Structures are given as C-alpha cells and as structure tokens.
C-alpha cells in the first residue's frame, strides 16, 4: 500500500540558460513543488567547451533562470538542484556557476546552505585505475591509453544521485554539481525520501529535457513530474502544450541507442515492463520502470584535449566549369599547398575542403554526392600544431584556389566569391574528446564529496 504522499519535481527548462516563460514557472509553483531541479549541461556541443573550460550557455541567460529558481526555492524552503554546472561540469564551469549563484544570493538577500560537488578526476588515480583494469572501454569506442589521460585538459565523471543525496542529508538547501548523469538532480530528493529508484530515474530522464517531451515540444518551457510509489505523472506548465503517450515515449528514444535498456551510474534502467498511459487530455502516467544495479558501480568519464589550432576561410562558387571539376581542382590546390610547405605535410597539418551543396553536411555518409547544384559553398579549413601554421596553410590554400587554372576557365578574374573581408578566420584551439570511458568506483558518495558553505558567504 502507498504510504508516501506524491512528490512533485519542477523542471523549468531543458538546459539552464535556455529560459522559460514566467507564467509557466508560476503555474509550476502554484502546484507546490517539493523540488526545483535543472540540468545545466550536455556533451552534445562537442569537446571544445569541456576542454577549454568555457560554458556553451550565456551568462546573463543562466543568471536569469537561476534567479527565478533560487528565489522561489528559498522562499518556499524547498531544495534547488543544478547538475552539470556550466554546461560541461568541470571545475571552471562549476566555479562560474557558483559565482553566479553568489551574486544572486547577494542581490536578493538569500540565505541558506549551499553544497558544491566537483566531479573532476585527478590524473594519478586514473592512471592507476587504467593499470588495474578499473578504467574500461565503452563500446564502440577504443580502449584508453595513458596519453589520453595525460594530455586531457579537463576530466569529469558523470556522477549519480548518491553524492547529491549526501549533500541533501547534510542539510543543503541548494546543490550545485559538476558533470552529472542527467536524471540525477531530479531523482536525488525522491530517492532520498524512499521512492523507487527506477521510477525516480525514469522520471528524471524525461524531466531533464523539460517540455521537449510534450507537443509542441520546447526546450524552453516548464514540465512537472509527480511521483508516487507506483508510477509518475508528467504535465506541462503551459496550456499551449500537452503530454501524450507518443510525446513522452518518443522522448525515451531520444539520443539513446536502446530505449529498453538505459545504462547510467551504478546500473541501468530497464523499461521492458514500462507502461505509458494517457490519464486525461494533457497528462501521461508512466509505470513499471525498474532500475537494475550492475555488478560493480561504474561512472562515465568525459575528457577533452587540444588537438591543434584552426583557421577557416568561407567562399562560394558559381562557375559551372569549376563546379563540374571540383574534385580535380581541390586535389590540385592540395598538391600546390603541400609542394610549397612540405614540412607541414607529414601529419602536422590538416587541410580540409568542405563542399556545401555536395557533401558538406553528411561527409562520408552522403549517398547523393554526385548530384551537383548550380552553386557551391566551400569552407577551406586548416588545423595545425600552431595558429601561425594554420593561418599559413589556410591563406595559401585560399589564394591558390582563388586563382587556380583549370580546363575551360573563362572567369579569369578569380574562382571564389568571398562574403567577408578579411576572408580568413582564426578559430583558435581545437579540442577533441580524449576519454569517454567507464570508471569503477567503490563508494560513489565518498568519491565525489561536497563542500558546504552559506549562500550569503562572499565568493
């Protein structure tokens, strides 16, 4: 028999900084949520943000969202949780977010206990874990090498709900964590209060994208999850959107290779027995989701490292003869560039021609590569060991292509249309993912300890 009252978790937005209508947020508050939680991150935007320690979200937009959440949370005495702080969740991202929180606390006169949970990994223990077999491959990736660890600028672990629960048990009113498994911030309070882990995590999995799981979907609107001991109900906080069985179930597919089996820290969600039921015109109830602990507790690691420096030049082509001979021309330009700079040919410089209108979007996966249009967009890209080398390769390739002679050429004033002056753009450091592997941890709460302070403390 149910003994716990339903618990309500409000997710204001899909990514902290993506915003939400104030009317939706207030509609959520009117239902008396027990928790306000938000996912602030993703590895989707690629390795740069993690590697460089920079957020892919805008500071003013993040501060705007956080202000509503913190003011409401403190006024109501309910916990506020932020996961994957600053987008990638490494130390610089976490510090950036904490600074914003302290500014808001100061401006709004907020008081309370703030727990900060870094999820960065030191290199020495990871090298030991690699040697002992506790740092393992995640197929279809390749096994990690020592250099992958050594060269990484930031290494984070996707933490589960356990470190968040430890902070809540210690009296935290606001919890801000580094990289988190997305559902963790939504599931932590319900799991702490005794609700089933599988249901709490599955609800969190849907809430982490807020109203994306509704129709019409939006990453910038609020969603409420109401959990009991048997299932949970999802509803939007905006009458313009509804939850349907299809919208909620479809979201379970999103960004996952197998919707029935969703691995996370410490185990996997099994949705084979999950049921999705339309309980009225706008709400969906989900039951039957089960969490199955794995043998050994593993967290996913993410890391990035510098792989070079980039310069790009953007141009367009309208000559039919040029377009018909594009492959020969690009090969000719490439040969000319490396004839002039042979020292950069031996792997230290990459020269890439992106041909939009042909295969610029799909690259090797493009099935219609031979169907050429009347105009092409070309990006000349150089990635080299230094910015100067990248500038040189890009510049030389650009000037060579501009004046390259080809059979039947009549437009002898130049082959390329440049939309910009200057034509070349220095894009700075280029990062690549260096780790996306699993790490065995003995005690997930002890591995990621929290640091408690007061919201009103100065930074």
């Amino acid at each position, binding site marked *: 028999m149910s003994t716990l009252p339903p618990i309500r978790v409000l997710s204001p937005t899909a990514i902290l900084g993506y915003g939400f209508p104030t009317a939706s947020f207030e509609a959520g508050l009117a239902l008396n949520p027990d928790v306000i939680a938000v996912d602030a991150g993703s590895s989707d935007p690629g390795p740069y943000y993690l590697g460089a320690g920079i957020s892919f979200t805008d500071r003013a937009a993040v501060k705007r969202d956080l202000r509503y959440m913190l003011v409401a949370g403190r006024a109501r005495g309910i916990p506020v949780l932020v996961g994957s702080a600053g987008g990638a969740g490494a130390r610089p991202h976490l510090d950036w977010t904490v600074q914003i929180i302290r500014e808001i606390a100061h401006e709004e006169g907020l008081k309370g206990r703030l727990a900060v949970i870094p999820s960065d990994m030191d290199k020495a223990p990871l090298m030991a874990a690699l040697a002992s077999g506790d740092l393992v491959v995640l197929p279809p990736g390749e096994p990690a090498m020592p250099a992958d660890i050594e060269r990484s600028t930031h290494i984070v672990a996707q933490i589960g709900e356990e470190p968040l629960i430890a902070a809540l048990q210690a009296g935290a009113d606001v919890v801000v964590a580094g990289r988190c498994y997305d559902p963790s911030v939504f599931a932590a309070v319900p799991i702490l209060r005794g609700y089933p882990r599988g249901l709490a995590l599955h609800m969190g999995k849907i809430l982490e994208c807020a109203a994306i799981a509704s129709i019409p979907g939006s990453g910038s609107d609020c969603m409420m999850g109401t959990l009991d001991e048997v299932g949970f109900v999802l509803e939007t906080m905006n009458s313009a959107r509804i939850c349907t069985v*299809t919208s909620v179930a479809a979201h379970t597919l999103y960004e996952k290779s*197998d919707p029935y089996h969703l691995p996370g820290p410490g185990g996997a969600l099994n949705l084979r027995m999950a049921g999705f039921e339309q309980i009225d015109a706008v709400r969906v109830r989900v039951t039957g989701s089960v969490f199955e602990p794995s043998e050994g507790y593993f967290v996913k690691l993410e890391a990035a490292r510098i792989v070079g420096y980039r310069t790009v030049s953007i141009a367009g082509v309208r000559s039919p003869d040029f377009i018909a001979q594009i492959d020969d021309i690009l090969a000719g330009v490439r040969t000319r560039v490396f004839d002039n700079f042979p020292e950069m040919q031996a792997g230290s410089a990459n020269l890439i021609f992106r041909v939009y209108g042909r295969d610029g*979007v799909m690259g090797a*996966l493009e099935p219609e590569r031979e169907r050429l249009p009347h105009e092409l967009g070309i990006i000349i890209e150089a990635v080299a060991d230094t910015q100067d080398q990248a500038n040189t390769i890009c510049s030389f390739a650009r000037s060579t292509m501009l004046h390259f002679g080809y059979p039947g050429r009549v437009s002898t004033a130049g082959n390329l249309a440049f939309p910009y002056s200057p034509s070349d753009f220095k894009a700075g450091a280029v*990062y690549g993912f260096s780790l996306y592997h699993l790490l065995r941890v003995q005690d997930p709460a002890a591995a990621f300890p929290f640091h408690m302070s007061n919201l009103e403390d100065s930074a």
Partner: protein
Amino acid sequence: MTRLIDVASVIRSKNAGPYELTLDVIFKDRFWYEQALRENLINPVLISRLYNVPEVDVLGIVAFEPANAIKATIRRPMVSGAIGETDVYGAQQHAPLLALTLGSA
C-alpha cells in the same frame, strides 16, 4: 505504395554519445508501425546501403512499441567533434530515410 514521410511524424538523427549516431522513425499510428515491422522496412542491409557504411557498423535496430518507433544506430564515421567533423550534434543525418516507401509488394 506509401511514402514513409506521409505515415511518420518524426524522422530524425542525433548522436547517442560521441561514438554513435541514432536514427529514429516514429510512425503516426500503430498500423503503419506494424506494417513497417511486417515488411522489415528498417534493416541492417538497408541502413548499410543508405549510409554507405559496412553492415558491421550498423550497431542495432530496435522497435519501441510505446512510441510506434523504430530506431537504427550506426557507428559514427568519426568521434563527435573530431577534425573533419561535419555535424557535431548529428542532427542532420536523417535525409536518406526520407525517400523510403512502404507497401511496395
């Protein structure tokens, strides 16, 4: 013959982690979902041909009844964001699916 695009509400692609690209077809109703399953419309040979990848790189095909959905996952040609990447999020790799048809028999 029925065009997939007329009976599907969603045809999309997206990264599933940095190593994988996952393709989702969500049908407008149970009838066409079941019809696609009967025809074995989405299968490894088809995905291999449409995306010009070896069959071994078609990592899985899963039917998900609660969403009337069929999903195929392939290994990305390169790790997301690597040098030479064309689509960091993997969000515009769905187009080869748009021309599929059902009920050709």
